């Protein structure tokens, strides 16, 4: 499986998407000067901008890599030459997934370091009222990464049932949007405001809530921006949620892919 991970990482590094990301990442360099334009809350703004840009890049990466990785292999008929090697379907699929996840981790480490440098520079220009809690910043970025790895698992699941890139790409985008809104929707449905809704709708909303990923659990941005202390629970729960949810998704994808015909 290591062999599969290595070859897929190489595929990503030699892909055009990778070079596009490097160009987009140059935007980080603009953060200190843009933030200083605000005159007030320069540090807070720089943190917001840096985290948003990082999140956007990770989103683009997880959709473009996650949704096309398997599809490309099938489309270009690499599957015939690779799956006929003494390699199990699960090792192939999991290897591919690990490669994309590792690449996201690598991108996060590099871009996260750049982001922190830029925030540090910005805070140097106009020192903040509150000191920056770097630990919160790191945890916030890490939680973001977990969220996107989970999204990649969804993209893989969609890829295993689809013959085109249409479902993987748009399915993943839908999951992303739904995952971000699910907590709000749930809260709304169960609030006094929603008394007019029929019980059936409420039931359906609850089922969806437990089925869809809940990405708001991974949003630690407020804590990072304003240096609000993080409870142990706010860190450990998302981590456990991530492990269980992602494992289930990958297992499901593997089961489907093992049965799939390479016609």
């Amino acid at each position, binding site marked *: 499986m290591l*062999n599969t991970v290595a*070859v897929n990482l*190489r*595929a990503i590094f*030699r*892909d055009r998407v990778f070079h596009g990301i490097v160009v987009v990442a140059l935007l980080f360099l603009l953060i200190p000067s843009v933030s200083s334009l605000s005159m007030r809350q320069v540090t807070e703004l720089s943190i917001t901008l840096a985290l948003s840009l990082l999140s956007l890049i990770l989103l683009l990466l997880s959709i473009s890599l996650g949704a096309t990785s398997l599809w490309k292999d099938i489309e*270009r*008929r*690499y*599957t*015939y*030459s*690779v*799956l*006929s*090697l*003494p*390699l*199990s379907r699960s090792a192939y699929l999991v290897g591919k997934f690990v490669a994309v996840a590792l690449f996201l981790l690598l991108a996060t480490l590099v871009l996260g370091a750049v982001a922190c440098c830029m925030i540090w520079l910005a805070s140097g220009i106009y020192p903040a009222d509150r000191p920056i809690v770097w630990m919160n910043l790191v945890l916030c970025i890490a939680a973001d990464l977990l969220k996107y790895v989970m999204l990649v698992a969804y993209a893989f699941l969609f890829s295993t049932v689809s013959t085109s890139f249409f479902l993987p790409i748009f399915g993943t985008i839908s999951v992303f949007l739904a995952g971000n809104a699910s907590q709000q929707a749930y809260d709304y449905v169960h609030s006094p405001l929603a008394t007019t809704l029929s019980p059936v709708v409420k039931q359906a909303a609850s089922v969806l809530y437990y089925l869809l990923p809940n990405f708001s659990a991974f949003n630690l941005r407020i804590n990072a921006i304003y240096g609000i202390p993080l409870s142990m629970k706010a860190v450990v729960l998302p981590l456990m949620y991530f492990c269980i949810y992602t494992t289930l998704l990958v297992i499901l994808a593997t089961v489907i892919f093992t049965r799939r*015909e*390479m*016609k």
Partner: protein
Amino acid sequence: MHAIEFDKLSKVFQGKKKVTVNALNSLSLQVDQGEVFGFLGPNGAGKSTSIKILLGLIGSTAGTARIMGVDVTEKTARSQVGFLPENPSFYDFLTGEEYLRFVGKSFNMSAADISVRGSEVLNRLDLWEARKRPIRGYSKGMVQRLGLAQTLIHDPAVYVLDEPMSGLDPIGRALVKDIIRELKERGKTVFFSTHITADVEAVCDRVGVINKGVLLAVDTVSGVLERGVEGYTVRLFKPDGASEECVVAKADLQDFIEKSIAQRCSIERVEPKRKDMEAFFLEMVSPKQTS
């Protein structure tokens, strides 16, 4: 133990709009170890379908297949096989050399073995110069030759080649035939599909003819060629120096030669006149046309 074994293998494709295609119909066939077997059939006969089942790429609707005694649904069945897909395509962001390394590692070869065997097969398939170039820039013939190289690198016992000569120029075709003969000499099993009868005649021990998913005949190549002998063309010189060419029926050859010698003719050449593999193939596949 047979090298390759198909046992009542059937495959039904479930197409769109509920059309079903019976691509394979109860195919039973054994290929012995050390044998070169030609799987001969027209386009759409079911050759690639059988081969894909053999490599675990698709499942069978009914029946089983085994490689070296291992059921093909197990991944270990593939550990003793070198497989060349039809119109192959390989990770094109890798160079030829890197791809061979990837394949070697998949077969658990050591780094040292990979580098030694890798150079050997790259040279053998005339890819040495191109080894450091990305496969993206290879011509169709080069990709086909790389495909053959990646079947050879781990020196397996069984070779499954789906139309190995397609996309190659005459030099490449000759090279592939040479390699198949070499493998035979080294006691390897080669199972290859083709629709070209001359290729079967050139390298195979046995041939199986398949059409519309049905295996029509299995025979030794020498048997087909011998039984195909219909008579002989005898060229002889008469005592007065004139030369003559006579067509003699199979049964009359002995008599004819004795008579000729008695008449003091000298025999220059005796050639068997036979239906070749092509005639055999056409007769099998479309019996009505070749009365």
